[in-house]
């Protein structure tokens, strides 16, 4: 549904000819896109405002690096800024003081607390700790059973909660029980509740007072929208949480809630949940989160790789050719070699200025195996054939197929796609589009 930010940038920055310095004037339009991209990613709109202003201040006056387009340069700045805002790399659990330590999980209904409790137990076990699971959700039907089942599955002792007990009593009692049983960390699974439910929030405060937990972790769904700020603010103000765990990160949510929550709480995001399986808990990496929010996947790190690997003048030459539609299979061969240096075909597409704009490219499956085939076919051509593909007649096609270990149909398909691509480039050449990806269509 949405174009990615890098696509929008490359079209905006096409207007800026040559290279030079990012200025207030030439980044204005791009910053509007940054704003929209952040909103699309569910970052709270007030947070967006502040972040965009911060980015603007950092970007103005920056010189555009030789090997980057202005768009890439700005994306780089945006990414660095988001990464910085997202906090420090890897924040583990702080289990200090007397054992057993208590670790309390809090959050809205359905945010993933129970599963996360079991995941944390496994994580702690791996670190040589002896966790103890405490079902303190006496409200939701079968919530106690759910945690107990998980505890048995992973072989972790648990408190045999009776739903008629008060949650604070459950926690107090389990503290002494856990100690006696030789456990050193309590993981308390509290009931999901709305941040505006005062009576229920009070219950958490009572638990907190009674057991003085080492960590109070807010479990928040990575898919949360604008409301994330309200939720995080309330939980933090009521309980002074010590950190955040983002759940359900393996989906396709852009996860802007992470930025919103970090902004209002200033508390570290400690873990992310990436699946329903009990071992799918991972440390939080600010840089990955930043690129996910921008919706650019690995393109960012590739920009850096490209700086090192892509031959600047070669790239310029190629761009010129693309624009004039003089791109031939010989050039394509050269590109394939560059691709191999950097990574997959898909990866390089995002780095070539303008190329991401072809909608069609996104629908295609850039199979690396396919790439090998294409390369073999092209390598089996003579230079002359590569320079002017039109001379490749039936017998030449058979020879090429034989030489590359492919079929005549494969060769036909490649040539047909290349011809179509040339046509497409002709149509778009004024706008600077390029379409060598269609070779794989």
């Amino acid at each position, binding site marked *: *549904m*949405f174009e990615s930010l890098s696509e929008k940038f490359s079209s905006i920055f096409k207007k800026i000819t040559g290279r030079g310095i990012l200025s207030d004037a030439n980044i204005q339009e791009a910053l509007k896109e940054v704003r*929209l991209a952040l*909103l*699309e*990613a*569910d970052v*709270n*709109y*007030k*947070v967006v405002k*502040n*972040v965009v202003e*911060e980015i603007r201040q950092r970007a103005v006056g920056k010189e555009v690096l030789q090997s980057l387009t202005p768009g890439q340069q700005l994306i780089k700045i945006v990414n660095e800024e988001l990464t*910085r*805002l997202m906090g420090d790399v890897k924040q583990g659990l702080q289990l200090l003081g007397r054992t057993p330590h208590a670790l309390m999980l809090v959050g*809205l*209904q*359905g*945010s*993933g607390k129970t599963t996360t409790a079991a995941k944390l137990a496994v994580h702690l076990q791996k670190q040589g700790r002896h966790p103890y699971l405490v079902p303190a959700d006496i*409200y*939701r*039907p*079968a*919530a106690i*059973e*759910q*945690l*107990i*089942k*998980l505890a048995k*599955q992973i072989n972790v002792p648990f408190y045999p909660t009776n739903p008629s007990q008060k949650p604070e009593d459950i926690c107090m009692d389990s503290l002494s029980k856990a100690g006696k049983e030789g456990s050193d960390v309590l993981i308390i699974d509290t009931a999901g509740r*709305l*941040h*505006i439910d005062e009576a229920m929030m009070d219950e958490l405060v009572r638990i907190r007072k009674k057991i003085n937990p080492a960590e109070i972790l807010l479990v928040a*769904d990575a*898919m*949360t*929208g*604008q*409301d*994330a*700020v*309200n*939720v995080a*603010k309330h939980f933090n103000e009521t309980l002074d949480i010590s950190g955040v765990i983002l759940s*359900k990160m*393996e*989906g*396709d*949510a*852009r996860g*802007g*809630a992470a930025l919103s929550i970090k*902004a*209002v709480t*200033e508390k570290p995001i400690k873990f992310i949940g990436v699946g*329903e399986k009990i071992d799918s808990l991972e440390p939080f990496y600010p840089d990955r989160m930043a690129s996910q929010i921008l919706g650019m996947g690995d393109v960012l790190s590739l920009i850096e790789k490209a700086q090192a690997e892509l031959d600047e003048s070669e790239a310029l030459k190629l761009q010129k050719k693309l624009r004039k539609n003089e791109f031939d299979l010989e050039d394509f061969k050269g590109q394939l070699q560059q691709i191999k240096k950097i990574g997959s075909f898909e990866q390089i597409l995002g780095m070539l200025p303008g190329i991401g704009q072809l909608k069609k490219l996104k629908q295609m499956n850039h199979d690396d195996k396919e790439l090998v085939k294409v390369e073999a076919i092209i390598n089996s051509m003579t230079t002359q054939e590569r320079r002017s593909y039109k001379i490749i007649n039936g017998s030449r096609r058979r020879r090429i197929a034989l030489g590359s270990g492919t079929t005549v149909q494969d060769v036909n398909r490649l040539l047909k796609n290349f011809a179509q691509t040339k046509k497409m480039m002709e149509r778009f050449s004024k706008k600077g589009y390029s379409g060598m990806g269609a070779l794989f269509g």
Partner: protein
Amino acid sequence: MIKFFSKEDKNGGVLERLRHGLSKTRSSISGRLDRLFLGKKEITGDLLEEVEEILFTSDIGVVTTQELINLLQDKVARKELKDPEKLKAVLREYMLSFLRIDSPAQSFPLNGQPLVIMVVGVNGVGKTTSIGKIASRYKSEGKSVMLVAADTFRAAAVEQLIIWGDRAGAEVIKQSTGSDPSAVVFDGLTAAVSRVFDVVIIDTAGRLHTKTNLMQELQKINRVIGQKIQGAPHEIWLVLDATTGQNSISQAEVFNNILGLTGIILTKLDGTAKGGIVVGISHQLGIPIRYIGIGEKIDDLRPFDPDDFVKAIFE
């Protein structure tokens, strides 16, 4: 730590300002719109931009917000809308038109066959709870209701549904955790047909729409239902959590592509989230919202009323 969030800022710290600002957002959108229009005789670009910002906070989303703004702008350009005071009413009308989908729910009788409803959605949105509530509604209409525990994956999911079955007075058909959900569904439908139940509601395991194999599993369940009872499932409802942001669009699109949804249930509207995302979903996919969830109790379910919903967004 960081300049943006640091506390040494002259104006009491950006964080302070942000916090302050946030507490203000709790005041009604309507109030903010009124303030916006106060003393302005013309609908300016600035004004529209501010409206846009306001729409964002209810999770209406970039695409739908832009669509709504474009509609407003067209009206302004055609000189049909000059008075800033009227802008709110016009906007509300557009939103209502997006939400009013003419597609009535399947009605009884079905030639003696049970009405089969399949409930799907991502993890934790409120499927099982909503099923309990819906079962209770049908029971109060005098229907016999069977619940099928087709979430054979999540720990204690079956136990949870059994408790809801008890509360609603509905029978629950189950097998052990780990068994094939299609098989549970097949057995359930066989029992429902032979014992002439009016309504069968199928609780499926929560799954992220990006997991292809799990989505295929749903397709299989869907097929099995159709093989057992022709024309069934009569209803396939997607449960969406009002707290979720833009990802709801992706959820609705994928579940709809895979299954062909006939309705949406929007849960957790008792919190502070507005659930504005359904405005665009309903409009773009033409799927009606059937019910809203407003709490964890058995009667915390209401039929969806577009007027009330839009009113709540502007409140």
